[in-house]
């Protein structure tokens, strides 16, 4: 850049971002999240950014965030899915019945049998994927607007869930399923560090591989120091997150109980941190897979092409109808995964599980920069969107904001986020 030397004083910071090739929207969202967290931390006299609260925030975000990644693809293809909350409910109901009634009665698998959890999850995934595919078929092949199909689905699946369980809360879930909810299943301190280091190594490898590939074709790459700084920032974020989760101590009474179960006596002064919850690992896995799908596969490329110009996609030989079925089926599968996490976190299937989640999921995707006009959206944006909403909600609850005001604020934030986003896009000169 020849004009750097004569650039006005405000330029250096922008130049830094440019050299690191960071997405301005990503930086903005992280800044918003940091501001929200610091703000609540001050107002609550230092209770917001504690290991305990960060841990809780993480496990409360997982279920909505997993579904929000799928909602990105739905909205990018110019569709909407209003049924995800009900879909989560019906998948949870099916899985609750599978593990507590059907498997024990039909196959004679008793409580705690090692096959119960995998079979239950398979049944749930099949139900979610099947229902999603049905929605996609109605939208793609029958031409019914997705708004209508999934509005119908919202009523139908919620009440099929009710019918299946007779409206009962179903407890006594399989112990292996319960591990996936949060506090009941974590990696522990040592393995959390290992997982963190693997994540850092993977991120560094991915960045350097992309750099090598660009180099091989003779493209300009960002300076090595910028790449290094980016990796260092990522490493600090990942390891910092692990450190915080490890710092959240397992309550002493609970530790004592586990020792007693093993027939041992807990040594004096013994402590243990929770570490990374399995549910958060599931979210990270989903995020990585969905990002790879979005950016590195034909399926993902076709999703974005179809959203950008459906006619062009069809003329390029893309089967946009089959694509719609696949996108909705994927959404259904993600609802099933969320259902496992949601029922495990509450240790029960309840009749209202997932109610109003469709709105949270859509809001998370939209706050994360997914454009309802189609063609634009990112997986990380949706996850950050979910995290921002959960932070606002739990922060306000800690401060003691009345419930009606909590929802008013979340509603305002949703509209404001889309407003800021549209201003940003107009400045960039691309279409709204």
């Amino acid at each position, binding site marked *: 850049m020849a004009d750097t030397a004569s650039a006005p004083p405000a330029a250096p910071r922008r130049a830094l971002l440019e050299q690191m090739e960071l997405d301005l929207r990503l930086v903005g969202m992280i800044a918003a999240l940091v501001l929200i967290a610091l703000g609540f931390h001050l107002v609550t006299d230092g209770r917001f950014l504690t290991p305990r609260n960060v841990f809780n925030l993480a496990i409360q975000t997982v279920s909505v965030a997993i579904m929000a990644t799928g909602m990105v693809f739905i909205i990018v293809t110019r569709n909407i899915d209003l049924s995800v909350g009900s879909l989560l409910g019906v998948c949870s109901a099916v899985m609750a019945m599978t593990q507590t009634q059907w498997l024990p009665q039909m196959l004679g698998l008793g409580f705690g049998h090692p096959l119960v959890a995998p079979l239950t999850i398979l049944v749930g995934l099949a139900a979610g994927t099947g229902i999603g595919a049905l929605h996609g078929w109605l939208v793609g092949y029958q031409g019914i607007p997705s708004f209508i199909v999934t509005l119908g689905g919202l009523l139908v699946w919620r009440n099929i869930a009710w019918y299946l369980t007779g409206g009962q809360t179903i407890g006594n879930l399989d112990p292996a399923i319960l591990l996936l909810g949060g506090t009941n299943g974590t990696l522990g301190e040592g393995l959390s560090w290992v997982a963190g280091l693997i994540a850092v190594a993977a991120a560094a490898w991915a960045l350097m591989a992309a750099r090598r*590939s*660009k180099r*091989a*074709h*003779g*493209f300009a790459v960002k300076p090595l120091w910028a790449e290094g700084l980016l990796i260092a920032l990522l490493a600090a974020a990942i390891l910092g997150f692990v450190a915080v989760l490890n710092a959240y101590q397992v309550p002493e009474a609970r530790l004592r109980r586990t020792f007693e179960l093993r027939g041992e006596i807990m040594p004096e002064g013994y402590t243990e941190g929770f570490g990374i919850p399995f549910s958060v690992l599931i979210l990270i896995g989903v995020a990585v897979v969905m990002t*790879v799908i979005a*950016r*590195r*596969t*034909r399926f993902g*490329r076709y999703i*974005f*092409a*179809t*959203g*950008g*110009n459906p*006619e*062009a*996609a*069809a*003329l*390029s*030989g*893309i089967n946009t109808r089959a694509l719609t079925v696949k996108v909705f089926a994927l959404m259904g599968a993600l609802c099933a995964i969320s259902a496992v996490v949601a029922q495990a976190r509450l240790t029960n299937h309840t009749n209202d599980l997932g109610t109003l989640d469709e709105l949270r999921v859509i809001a998370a995707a939209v706050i994360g920069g997914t454009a309802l006009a189609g*063609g*634009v959206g990112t997986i990380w944006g949706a996850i950050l969107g979910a995290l921002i909403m959960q932070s606002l909600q739990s922060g306000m609850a800690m401060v003691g904001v009345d419930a009606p005001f909590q929802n008013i604020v979340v509603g305002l934030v949703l509209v404001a986020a889309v407003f800021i986003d549209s201003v940003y896009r107009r400045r960039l*000169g*691309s*279409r709204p």
Partner: protein
Amino acid sequence: MTEPLRTGTPLVEMRDIRIAFGGVQAVDGVSIDLWPGEVVGLLGHNGAGKSTLIKILSGAYRADSGEIRINGEPVEIRSPRDARAAGIETIYQTLALADNLDAASNLFLGRELRDRLGFLDDARMEAETRRIMARLNPNFRKFAVPVAALSGGQRQSVAIARAVYFNARILIMDEPTAALGVHETRMVADLIKELKAQGLGIFLISHDTREMMELCDRVSVMKNGRLVGTERVEDVTEDDILSMIILGKNPRREAA
């Protein structure tokens, strides 16, 4: 311009093509052909059926009846994929680009290059795009931005690059210069001549009769879904073509 040799087998023959939408016979028993190294213009009013006819060849529509032969071999074109497999590339009036994707993604849309693991090889696709653009439009620099940010001419060169890159034998251009300025129109005209010299067959749709007289070897005129006639451009005047378009008959032929 060199006269193509119309001997041997034609590159494309469309015989007695018919298609109806609802009660409207959009294309009604039309037969046209195209030889290697030839540019055939399709003329007619809006709604005359020329775009519909051409969309049957490019796989966007399926004819109700009729036969298509490529190099003398009958082919079934059921989808855009089939058309591409037969060496037919189309540049649509609407350009058919996904505005939110960059030039390389658009160029390879539907035919992405992949690495050993089956993932998209974006770096190689961009390198190939740079290579072909260096030939077609050396001033093109905007490889990293969505094509929404490109000018009409730049978008057109992406659309043309897509057709040229995959070594089409048959090119369909639907109003390729409609959205372009003078300079860019010149660029497209030069490119058509170059491709013609390489032996491609080109169907050209345009409303600009003067441009058609300059670029085409023959013109076929359609009206109300029927073929009025096909003439070699040196045998007719611009006025003759206009009367074919407007009146549906060739005054010279009628007089003869």
